[in-house]
């Protein structure tokens, strides 16, 4: 839609308005991501293979995670802030316009720091993951699926704020997803494993997509697509219902 394109264009323009700050923030984030890669390299150097994962495959995982994280937190930056916006009354400006609120809110802001994640992830893949043409296409597709899933999850947990009146659910959701997402999922067993594939689908945002880049598995690919779709629907429904309970920050200001 023309309106959403125009919104995205403005978001880009605003992020690029201070190029020096943008470059600095992106660099810092890339260093940050690099430190995690170092950890994993040190770990696997010491430990050898673990549950079918080794240094090379963990690097692919980090590449997918940072790429999807960068796309979601960087380009759809308000996804993480839905809870805060709901409780703080920051949705007024969106609701005053004849636009579908959720897409507009998501596109409206770009977070320069997380663009560093995106740059890092793509670079890491190209430099360290021996990209083949098929592998690259897979990487792009699974990263997009992962981005969708992550964003939907963040919106869903954030939208719970409409119902409970506090924004912590969004923050907790964000932190747990990113933390757990960084792990090679096969390490976990039992109830935790089930949880990581379903309710808190951290396994689906990096470990599963990364595995697909190494070796395509139709079942897992389908599971990823379904997870993305299910969470997108859940997020949209929760957000829409939540808007009915929106208080525009009035409760807080009155207190």
């Amino acid at each position, binding site marked *: 839609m023309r309106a959403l394109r125009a919104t995205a264009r*403005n978001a880009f323009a605003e992020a690029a308005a201070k190029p020096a700050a943008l470059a600095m923030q992106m660099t810092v984030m890339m260093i940050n991501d690099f430190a995690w890669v170092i950890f994993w390299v040190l770990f696997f150097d010491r430990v050898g293979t673990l549950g079918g994962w080794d240094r090379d495959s963990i690097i692919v995982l980090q590449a997918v995670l940072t790429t999807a994280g960068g796309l979601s937190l960087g380009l759809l930056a308000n996804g993480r802030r839905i809870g805060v916006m709901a409780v703080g009354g920051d949705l007024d400006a969106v609701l005053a316009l004849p636009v579908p609120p959720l897409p507009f809110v998501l596109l409206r802001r770009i977070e320069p720091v997380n663009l560093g994640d995106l740059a890092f992830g793509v670079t890491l893949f190209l430099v360290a993951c021996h990209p083949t043409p098929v592998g690259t296409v897979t990487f792009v597709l699974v990263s997009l699926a992962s981005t969708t899933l992550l964003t939907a999850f963040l919106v869903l947990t954030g939208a719970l704020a409409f119902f409970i009146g506090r924004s912590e659910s969004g923050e907790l959701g964000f932190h747990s997803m990113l933390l757990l997402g960084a792990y090679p999922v096969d390490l976990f067993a039992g109830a935790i494993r089930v949880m990581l594939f379903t309710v808190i689908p951290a396994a689906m945002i990096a470990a599963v997509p990364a595995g697909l880049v190494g070796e395509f598995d139709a079942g897992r690919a389908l599971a990823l697509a379904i997870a993305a779709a299910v969470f997108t629907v859940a997020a949209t429904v929760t957000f829409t219902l939540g808007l009915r309970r929106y208080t525009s920050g009035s409760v807080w200001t009155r207190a």
Partner: protein
Amino acid sequence: MAIEARGLTKVFETGRRKARHRIEAVRSLDLDVAAGERVAYIGPNGAGKSTSIKILTGILHPTEGRATVLGVTPWEDRRRLARRIGTLFGQRSLLWLELTPRQSYRMLAAIYGLDRPAEQRRIAELGELLDSTDLFDQPVRNLSLGQRMRCELTACLLHEPEILFLDEPTIGLDLIAKQRFRELLVRLNEHQGTTIFLTSHDVADIEHVAKRAIVINHGEVIYDDEVAAMRRTLLGTKIVEVGLLAPIPAPTPLGVTLLEHTDTLMRLVVDTHTTPIRTVLDELLDGPAVADISVVDPPLEQVIAEIYELPAR
């Protein structure tokens, strides 16, 4: 009717478990505003003004009651209504801080479905009407608050709305800027027939913009009349506070009520329709006893209290 509301109620629940309590922000509100009117919706802080306007613009869902704006129920048909109304909330910006107003207008034009020629035409028109053309190409963060508000006003008028809702638009502006802004609203209404619905807790907005004033307090309408009538009854009072070096007797003219009288302080209420303020001041200043003198409008809470002899907040 451009705006019609019956029995609008909005209850907020806050606090947790034992401390849980309900706040009735708006209580059974009835409202009728015809097209082309200029209405000031006045009340002290916490009276329910912002909540009412957010319900009428579709941002909040009411707990009870019904309303139509331009024939549409706001919270059910929000997006359709948004194409025909404009909103300017003093503390929420439509403009992007790092970009120029023109870049924001480009995006808004896309949102409202204006094609490029219409967009250019409208920007030029508004630039002239609001005297803000030279502001459009500077980053918004470089503009003063008064300049920003003129650009915000342009933004919410791009799509030629039939009604303009403004929520505390002059907050933070200096006196001159406020005055200019009010003049712009009047001009807008007179040239383009836009209905103006303005909330404020500044009495001067009644005097200079509105033809009709609706006063709301504790979530209910307590006064609704032509401003001319209100002017006759209420807006003529001034409070005079005098610091004294030596005791002096109270002034004698009619229309002067003594609130407080000690050896060092005198407070008076003057009904300026009965006695011009000048007469009272002349009498007080005739002699060396006055150290300090101030003349102020009575606070809005007091005006409202006077309207209905309710205890002031």
